[in-house]
């Protein structure tokens, strides 16, 4: 096992709220491999970043590293968080979310994860459709009802949308409509402009949070700048 392989594996761990890999965000403070043991330190933009998200990312990191060939033990340590001790003890003991947080965690994390997968899908849908609108000036909002996946160009915005649809178990066939709800159902034609508008506010929200969290991480840990990979701006900042 080499550090490069372990780090590559961490690309699969996403901040659910920002919809970006923890590696690109600069959340991985250090990674060391000693024989078959891997130790990872994570850092976050504030001490008060959500403990449930923090736990989710740390436990996902542990899972992807444990699954690698040639790894016998994985230590994931969350630094400088108000729940660092609690989370680190829970991770070391594989106690799970409820086992870690006890009575405070009366729901599991699956519902939270699903919420953010849906938001990520909504944002990806808006990016793809807004790009299409910008490139085809004759196309108007109210005609988006009839746009199918086959109408989207072979572009990374489209690929990103397909990945997020697949993650939610939504139809990825070429004839499937693009503008759909969380369950893959198309909206009534008359609701299309409103739904696109709402999808836009979801996308603005996610993009804005991602910028803010990246900047705050650099304010808190200036050395993290070197570890951050620029966010893929699939649609121009507007």
């Amino acid at each position, binding site marked *: 096992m080499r550090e490069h392989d372990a780090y590559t594996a961490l690309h699969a761990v996403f901040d659910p709220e920002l919809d970006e890999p923890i590696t690109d965000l600069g959340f991985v403070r250090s990674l060391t491999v000693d024989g078959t043991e891997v130790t990872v330190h994570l850092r976050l933009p504030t001490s*008060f970043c959500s403990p449930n998200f923090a736990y989710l990312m740390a436990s996902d990191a542990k899972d992807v590293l444990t699954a690698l060939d040639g790894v016998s033990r994985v230590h994931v340590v969350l630094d400088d968080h108000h729940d660092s001790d609690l989370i680190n003890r829970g991770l070391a003991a594989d106690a799970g979310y409820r086992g870690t947080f006890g009575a405070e965690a009366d729901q599991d994390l699956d519902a939270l994860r699903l919420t953010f997968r849906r938001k990520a899908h909504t944002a990806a849908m808006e990016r793809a459709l807004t790009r299409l609108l910008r490139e085809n000036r004759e196309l108007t909002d109210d005609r988006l009802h009839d746009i199918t996946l086959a109408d989207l160009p072979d572009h990374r915005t489209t690929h990103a949308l397909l990945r997020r649809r697949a993650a939610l178990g939504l139809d990825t066939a070429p004839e499937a409509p693009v503008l759909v709800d969380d369950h893959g159902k198309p909206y009534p034609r008359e609701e299309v402009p409103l739904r696109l508008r709402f999808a836009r506010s979801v996308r603005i*929200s996610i993009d804005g949070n991602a910028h803010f969290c990246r900047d705050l991480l650099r304010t808190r840990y200036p050395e993290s700048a070197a570890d951050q990979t620029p966010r893929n701006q699939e649609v121009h900042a507007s």
Partner: protein
Amino acid sequence: MYTKDGDSYFIVDAHVALWDARPENQANIHGKQFIDCFYDYHRNLSPESELWSYEEYLYYGGARLMKDLFQDGYVDHAIFQPAHLGAFYKNGFGQTEEAFALTKQHPDKLTYNHYFDPRLEQAGLDQLRCDAERFGLKGVKLYTAEWRDDSRGYKLDDPWCRRYLETCLDLGIRNIHIHKGPTIRPLDRDAFDVADIDKVATDYTDLDFVVEHCGLPRLEDFCWIATQEPNVHAGLAVAMPFIHTRPRYFAQIIGELLYWLDEDRIQFSSDYALWTPKWLVERFVDFQIPEDMTEYAPLTIDQKRKILGLNAAAMYDLPVPEELQVRRIETQAVSVA
């Protein structure tokens, strides 16, 4: 008051604090982490010329506050929105006695809002009645993600909280400011979730709910609720300073708020002392939606007047000189449009 290019603006800073985060007031490591987090926000989003030292930031006192807001900051009236944070600070984070004494000295310039915590049940309810009388409360600031014993938060529609809101109605406390923004949140539920506001806004239509930080980082959830509930308002604390670091993002926030709400339900705040109002007021008056963002209409001077002060002034019955009001004819034109 602020004047630029012949246009004058009545300024209400709807969210300010007088805090004490010095080490001797910190109850534990969380008290230090909390102010450090604030200081990082301050460092990250302020222009370099407006940066404070860490020592100044821990505690600045009333004289400094008066200077920064009223002498330098163009503010006509400011409203204290204190966070208690008793689990982090021995004598609380927001300094009630100091802020209230300052308010009594300058009643024309300052309004003191207090807080309650429904987890104190009947004892807290009795306290609220005393506080309402003593402070002459028109509003409260609720920090729903505040820690108390084993609890890391409460919801506005919890049964006890509903009793508190009903008591607010009895006592004439009409303005309920709720912190829904970054920093602390309860563990198992998402404290940014604004769903609890939706429920109580529907049930208590005689109360106005000002969502501080306009729901950031969940702007879309906030907008979706506010578009349906006419008594839900957006407080711009923490959103304002993006005008400096990310003006395009700021344009999107304002553009979305104007689309989903309207120009009468958006309030300026500096969130002092996270940021000082002077530069925020100057930049907002100069601000315009970038031309290539064709999805948003340009901001008008009257919209800026409302956001910078007239909306909050109306909510708090603050007297505004006639010449600083928006011109009536234009208001009608906007409302017809």
